[in-house]
């Protein structure tokens, strides 16, 4: 079938999996088994098909199976709009992650142009109530899913800002050096801000156009103080803020201080003040809207990773979620503790049971 999905996944010495293989046909995949069996480890492996550190944001060495710690390998065949790519990621013990696409070495950012992967994890349940960092990362993952170049701008901005912060901390006062760094920050920062806005516009439009069982959110980007989002104005703002930044020892304006604001549209209530169930429903709604917007834009739904997503939903909402995932045609990798959680999927999904014995995960396709 056309679309965007992994048709084959093989893990070697990855987390609890000594060796594991999954053959997939593009349908959603329901993965069930007891706690600690290794279900989320499978999803984490799939999340590495997107640029970055994966859904756990773990260091590459942490992903090595213990106690051997020999390094690990993840290989997948990605079906992308009728083209198949073999993607291999490996990390030797003590080494860095290496990526090969169709047998050729490639940079991490190349993945953003091949695969689109969106995830929802239990750790994100506190997204609306914890600090802005998590929400900013969530916002950037949405932007990255639409615009692969967003990752490059974010890296360039981060690098230039770390350089500027070092100048501030060391109390260096070379205006030309500051101006050189601020010029790079302004260019990348304006691109980041524009990417975030454009991505949110697409998600909001997808929410408005959809018939869904999940609540719509009004979205916005907020800053602790006014942040110019145009390149020249941001460069000016950074230059004018040098004295204040020197006192603080860090950069006080810029896209690195953005926050994602969400309001439960129907109730007009900020997400942070909603009930736990409503907060989860808002997150699911955003992930689905992100996926719908992407499907409209690139012609295929992204790969979805929904870890323990069924746990907080009643049977009706669960069935509605499965219906929407299937209607999207997305390969959703979903985990849960028992097969009953996935009953409503019927034969619309593949099923894999994960068990653990002697510190090793075992997969059993059903």
């Amino acid at each position, binding site marked *: 079938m056309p679309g965007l999905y992994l048709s084959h996944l093989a893990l070697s010495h990855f987390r609890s999996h000594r060796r594991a293989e999954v053959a997939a046909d593009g349908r959603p995949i329901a993965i069930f088994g007891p706690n600690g069996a290794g279900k989320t480890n499978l999803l984490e492996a799939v999340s590495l098909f997107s640029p970055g550190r994966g859904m756990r944001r773990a260091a590459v060495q942490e992903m090595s199976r213990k106690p051997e710690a020999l390094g690990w390998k993840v290989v997948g065949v990605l079906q992308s709009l009728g083209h198949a790519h073999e993607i291999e990621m490996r990390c030797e013990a003590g080494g860095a992650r290496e990526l090969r696409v169709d047998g050729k070495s490639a940079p991490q950012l190349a993945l953003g*142009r091949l695969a689109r992967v969106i995830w929802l994890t239990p750790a994100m349940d506190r997204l609306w109530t914890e600090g802005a960092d998590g929400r900013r990362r969530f916002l950037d993952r949405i932007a990255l899913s639409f615009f*692969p*170049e967003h990752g*490059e701008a974010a890296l*360039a901005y981060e*690098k*230039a800002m*770390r*350089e*500027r912060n*070092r*100048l501030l901390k*060391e109390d*260096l006062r*070379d205006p*030309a*050096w500051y*101006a*050189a*760094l601020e*010029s*790079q920050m302004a260019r990348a920062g304006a691109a980041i801000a524009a990417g975030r806005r454009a991505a949110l516009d697409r998600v909001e439009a997808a929410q408005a156009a959809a018939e869904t069982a999940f609540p719509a959110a009004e979205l916005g980007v907020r800053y602790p103080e006014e942040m110019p989002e145009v390149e020249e104005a941001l460069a000016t703002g950074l230059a004018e803020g040098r004295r204040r930044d020197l006192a603080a020892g860090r950069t006080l304006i810029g896209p690195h201080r953005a926050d994602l604001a969400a309001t439960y549209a129907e109730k007009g209530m900020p997400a942070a003040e909603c009930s736990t169930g409503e907060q989860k429903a808002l997150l699911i709604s955003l992930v689905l809207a992100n996926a719908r917007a992407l499907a409209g834009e690139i012609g295929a739904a992204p790969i979805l990773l929904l870890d323990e997503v069924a746990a907080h939903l009643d049977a009706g909402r669960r069935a509605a979620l499965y219906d929407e995932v299937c209607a999207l045609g997305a390969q959703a990798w979903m985990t849960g503790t028992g097969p009953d959680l996935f009953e409503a999927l019927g034969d619309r999904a593949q099923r894999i049971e994960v068990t653990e014995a002697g510190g090793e995960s075992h997969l059993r396709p059903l």
Partner: protein
Amino acid sequence: MTQPSEIERLIEMMAKLPGLGPRSARRAVLHLVARRDAQLAPLARQMQLVADTARECTNCGNIGTADLCPICTDPRRANGQICVVETVADLWAMERASVFSGRYHVLGGTLSALDAIGPEELRIPQLVARIDEEAVREVILALPATVDGQTTAHYIADRLEERVALTSLAQGVPIGGELDFLDDGTITAALNARKPL
């Protein structure tokens, strides 16, 4: 250990060179030992000679065997143009193309506050001084298209603004390159820098 320690030590030293590893170093040493008179001894003499005489050109930072390198002593290269490069390897790459007839200035790195590399470490004050001393009309910035490279280019541009014409190398489609294999950033740069046929 299968080799005598002196040869083993030589292999270890060779293995630290760029482009060589333990296996290729062993092969190179075996090759040299087998041709001791024809290759090993002349190589050792030449290395000693270079070790005794190699030095940085006091004007541009190129590597030579005198205080001033051949480019800086050649009056035909004083055409009012200076090409600023990050490393000596970049200078030699430009020279291989035999297309630039001016002089160079080797920075020896790029600005990096995190690595404690500031303008003083980069021979930027020397570059500024050369503008008047050598009646320079144009400075060509041939620095890497990385954050550090472009920060350095901006910094130099700021220091030399209004004193001299500033240009930078174009970015775009390489000769013999196919569009299909280029990244989006390069294609965008190439399109923005398009020129009439």
